[in-house]
């Protein structure tokens, strides 16, 4: 089956990432496909490039990267993202900010990409918190 997943919570404020990653890895092991992982609301903070994981705690960024390396699109809602401070080079130039903050394999996309991913998939699963 084809799945679309949504992540609504920030790292350290929610278990969204653990749940989303655990579920996505199980999907791939069972030979399902993932149309897209969509980061919405505070979920956009998952894509911040400047996070530093404390010693002795698990860094979830490599797990997102590994999902991406297996062909999974990591799509950050652009409206939710830029107002919270998750911007790519294009938005940095447009709004004259000093630096970018979106980690490399994540992309900023419109809400249309959430709806089209939902339409393409057999299942839509949300990890809100």
């Amino acid at each position, binding site marked *: 089956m084809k799945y679309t997943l949504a992540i609504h919570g920030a790292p350290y404020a929610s278990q969204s990432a653990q*749940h989303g990653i*655990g579920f996505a890895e199980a999907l791939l092991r*069972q030979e399902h496909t993932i149309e897209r992982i969509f980061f919405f609301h505070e979920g956009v903070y998952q894509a911040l490039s400047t996070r530093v994981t404390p010693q002795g705690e698990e860094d979830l960024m490599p797990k997102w990267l590994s999902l991406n390396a297996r062909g999974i699109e990591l799509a950050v809602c652009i409206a939710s993202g830029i107002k919270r401070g998750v911007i790519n080079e294009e938005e940095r130039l447009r709004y004259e900010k000093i630096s970018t903050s979106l980690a490399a394999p994540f992309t900023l996309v419109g809400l249309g990409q959430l709806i089209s991913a939902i339409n393409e998939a057999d299942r839509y*699963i949300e990890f809100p918190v």
Partner: protein
Amino acid sequence: MSLHLVFNSAGYKACQLRRLNDDPIILLGDGVYCASSTREDNTYLLEIDARVRGIASLNKEANLIDYPAMVALTELYSPVVSWAE
């Protein structure tokens, strides 16, 4: 039939009011604290979240499941509804 993912106790309440009795529920995150409110066959606990919180050893008869089993449930039911408040 719907499958319900319950992420905390307020979500559990809202879900219980609106689900069909036969719809299965997966308790995950802080939802596992609701394990003692239920002994129904169609209620599942995400084992890792229950063990993290010290809940697994208190609910030895609970249906503990892992992510692959959770995936299998999502194959069988639609829509999959998340509840968190």
